[in-house]
């Protein structure tokens, strides 16, 4: 330890001019506020900014230079033998130099940043950068200096040895780069941003430790031999990095091998008739890695499909033979449109290379898609050939919802101040407005009628194509559902009311708790979901024809968009359950814990 400090002191003595240079930069930063053009009120900011810029530039530059010279230069100049002819260990030489370099960098930074800290660096950092407070900024600068220092050492050693071994380094660096890219890409495809970041940090720390330990190994084994020094560092570094990458790759392979049973369910999307669902969630013990499965509710078959995040905007075609989604994240609202066939043994995801927001529609037979892209452009694609069949740009509107009426006729709802209804003829390439609807409405099963009730004085039933008001029901419900036959179920507080398609009250059923939402279970049945004060759900299956409660399930919460006789539900433990509303059978398909 004593020798380490002696060497550190010697190195500092030798390079003390660095401190003088740092002081000169600090003085320069103090001159900047008084330069012509700097307003008196901005002097404080100018001082802090100049000091910050100088300290950053000087520190990272110094780090790179010190890193490149710490061993490499003395080796190539034949000066390392001075230490090796003395009774000092390789560890003392390496760590003595390392301590000196660290002190040089940190103290130089502190010297130049001193005016900035006096002037109030926090405010300046907030004003001029997106890094927030001064402490994270300083951390980032010093981390960048550390990275440059270590890289400088490695590159300096490799370049100065003038050895053909550098070809091996190039190949190894390329292989490591490819491996890192493949590992990270595969994890990011599972939206494992947190896990990827943690593994990235682990790898960065491991690389830093490998370079520091490799430096010691290099000095201990290479000593004054330039080429051997290079080979020893290279060998140590690539073995350490390679081993870490093998471990990380093995871990990543395990993370990615999520089976259906390993899934912690977080989302479930029903097909229109409820035969299929796409179930997504995190892999058990796999941090935030997500996996998705296409699940057949009839035979419990689960097939892995590409991981979909909650912003994937999954849709099934009406014939339930095609499903599609958009790969996008909240930070990147435009993603790529994917399509897959449901009825193949292993649904193969086809990357269409079509950019898409989350707003799109599939035709009933799944052969076409109408995709809204940025600039309010709606394009209709033939999915077999991925060719455009036509496109139309809407002049205005904040939110565009396309619908296929037939394969050749699109209806487009353009939400803005009210909702404008357009029809686009794919064959004739004609667009015409057919009517106007309120801002918010719910469509019935065959998209002929729309119910508007949110912030309305009554339930208003409109023609979904022309916007003509068909009927008004004098109620202000919290939720409304169209039943398959056109009847309307409306709920407010404890009361469920059933209206005929023309708005006549057919039945009123009082329930013991406040109704939160309704699920159309098909066949004239509705599931009423209620929550008690402890948020414990109760689901009541009601036969609306007879007006009777068929069964009551405590603690069962159907998915909001569930439909059909077999409903995906969660229980209190958040296990995923298929509830057969006809037989009453409840089948746990995925346990949360």
């Amino acid at each position, binding site marked *: 330890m004593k020798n380490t400090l002696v060497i550190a002191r*010697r190195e500092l003595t030798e390079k003390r001019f660095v401190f003088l240079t740092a002081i000169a930069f600090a003085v320069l930063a103090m001159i900047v506020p008084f330069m012509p053009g700097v307003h008196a009120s901005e002097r404080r900011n100018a001082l802090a900014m100049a000091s910050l810029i100088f300290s950053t530039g000087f520190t990272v530059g110094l780090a790179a230079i010190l890193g490149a010279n710490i061993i490499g230069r003395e080796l190539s100049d*034949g*000066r390392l033998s*001075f230490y090796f*002819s*003395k*009774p000092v*260990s390789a560890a003392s030489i390496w760590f003595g130099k390392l301590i000196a370099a660290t002190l040089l960098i940190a103290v130089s930074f502190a010297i130049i940043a001193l005016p900035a800290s006096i002037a109030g660096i926090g405010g300046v950092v907030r004003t001029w950068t997106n890094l927030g407070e001064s402490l994270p900024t300083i951390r980032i600068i010093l981390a960048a200096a550390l990275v440059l220092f270590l890289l400088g050492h490695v590159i300096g050693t490799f370049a100065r040895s003038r050895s053909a071994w550098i070809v091996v380094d190039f190949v190894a660096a390329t292989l490591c780069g490819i491996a890192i890219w493949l590992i990270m890409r595969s994890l990011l495809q599972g939206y494992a941003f947190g896990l990827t970041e943690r593994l990235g940090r682990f790898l960065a720390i491991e690389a830093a430790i490998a370079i520091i330990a490799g430096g010691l190994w290099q000095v201990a084994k290479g000593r004054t031999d330039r080429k051997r020094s290079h080979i020893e560092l290279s060998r140590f570094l690539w073995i350490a990095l390679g081993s870490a990458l093998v471990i990380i790759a093995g871990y990543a392979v395990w993370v990615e091998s999520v089976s259906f049973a390993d899934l912690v369910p977080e989302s479930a999307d029903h097909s229109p008739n409820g035969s299929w669902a796409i179930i997504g969630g995190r892999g058990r013990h796999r941090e935030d890695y997500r996996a998705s499965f296409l699940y057949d509710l009839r035979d419990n078959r689960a097939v892995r499909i590409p991981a979909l995040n909650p912003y994937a905007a999954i849709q099934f075609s009406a014939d339930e033979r095609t499903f599609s989604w958009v790969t996008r994240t909240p930070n990147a609202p435009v993603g790529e449109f994917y399509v897959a066939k449901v009825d193949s043994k292993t649904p193969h995801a086809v990357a269409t290379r079509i950019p898409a927001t989350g707003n799109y529609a599939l035709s009933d037979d799944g052969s076409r898609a109408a995709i809204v892209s940025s600039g309010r452009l709606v394009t209709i694609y033939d999915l077999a050939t991925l060719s455009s069949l036509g496109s139309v740009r809407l002049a205005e509107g904040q939110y565009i919802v396309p619908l296929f009426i037939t394969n050749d006729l699109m209806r487009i709802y353009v939400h803005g101040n009210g909702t404008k209804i357009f029809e686009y003829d794919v064959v004739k390439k004609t667009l015409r407005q057919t009517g106007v609807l309120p801002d918010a409405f719910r469509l019935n099963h065959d998209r002929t009628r729309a119910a508007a009730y949110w912030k309305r004085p009554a339930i208003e039933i409109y023609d979904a194509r022309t916007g003509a008001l068909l009927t008004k029901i004098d109620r202000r419900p919290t939720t409304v559902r169209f039943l398959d036959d056109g009847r309307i179920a409306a709920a407010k507080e404890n009361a469920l009311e059933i209206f005929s398609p023309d708005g006549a009250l057919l039945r009123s059923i009082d329930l013991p708790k406040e109704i939160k939402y309704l699920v159309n279970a098909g066949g004239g049945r509705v599931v009423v979901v209620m929550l008690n004060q402890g948020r414990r759900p109760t689901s009541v299956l009601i036969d609306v024809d007879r007006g009777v409660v068929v069964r009551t399930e405590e603690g069962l919460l159907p998915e909001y968009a569930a439909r059909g006789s077999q409903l995906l539900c969660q229980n209190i433990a958040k296990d995923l359950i298929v509830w057969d509303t006809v037989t009453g059978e409840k089948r746990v398909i995925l346990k949360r814990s």
Partner: protein
Amino acid sequence: MSEQAMEVSNVTVRYGRLLAVDRVTFAVPRGSVYALLGRNGAGKSSLVRCILGQREPQMGRVHLFGADVWNQRTALMQRVGVLSEEADAPPEMTVDQLARFCSDIYARWEQKEVDDRLRRFEIALDSKFGSLSKGQKKQVLLALALAMSPDLLVLDDPTLGLDVVARKSLFEEVIAEMADRGITVFLTTHDLSGIETLADRVAIMKNGTLVLEEDLDALKARFRRIRFAAQPVALEQSALRTALVRSWGAGAEAIVTNYDDVAFERLRTTNAEVSAMSLEEIFIAVSGEGARS
């Protein structure tokens, strides 16, 4: 405790395809002055780096005082004073700073010795090492190497760049003094005349191989130059081995490596003149062009 200060066993050093040192073996007894001679590129410096534990040989081992120098370099260097071929001290440091640095590193340190020697060499303590002449740099490093009272002094071409006075001072005062104090001295040098009276044992390297290694007295006793007035036909049939035979006037000159009077008498030649050889002449004969090594 090992009787040898240094044991070099089968040391081989390669630089890629170039064989710099080829299976060299020798030992340096404690308290002796051992001179390793060789032309430039003979492999001396590579061997010295192995001896100082600065380079690991591809094959073979070096032991100092019975300990493996590669594995125990740090401890061994407390006992070894080194004057390297290249003045490798940091040029920005002053002589005083260098001395203080060394005093912190070594367990034994005689600052007075350093001061006295530097005064004799007329080198100011506040001089920057980089500003000194080549000879002065060597003198500073020598002063530092001696101040830690070494048991073994390794001098790699110590007179390179020294003027005549400094060279004489080095050999006559320093090395002789060290030898008198029982310190083992191992040196490589081109300055053969200087060491002729000092060295106990001599080795000569040629093309990485040790071609000769023995006590200096024995070496000088067996090497003779014989000049013949006519071509020495009888020489080839005699027991005398030659390192070199070349024309000399109308006759020939032969360097004999196993001279003895009886064998010479058996040549029955009257036109031959025998003379002793200096170490320099022996060196040239052994390592020069045309020598039979």
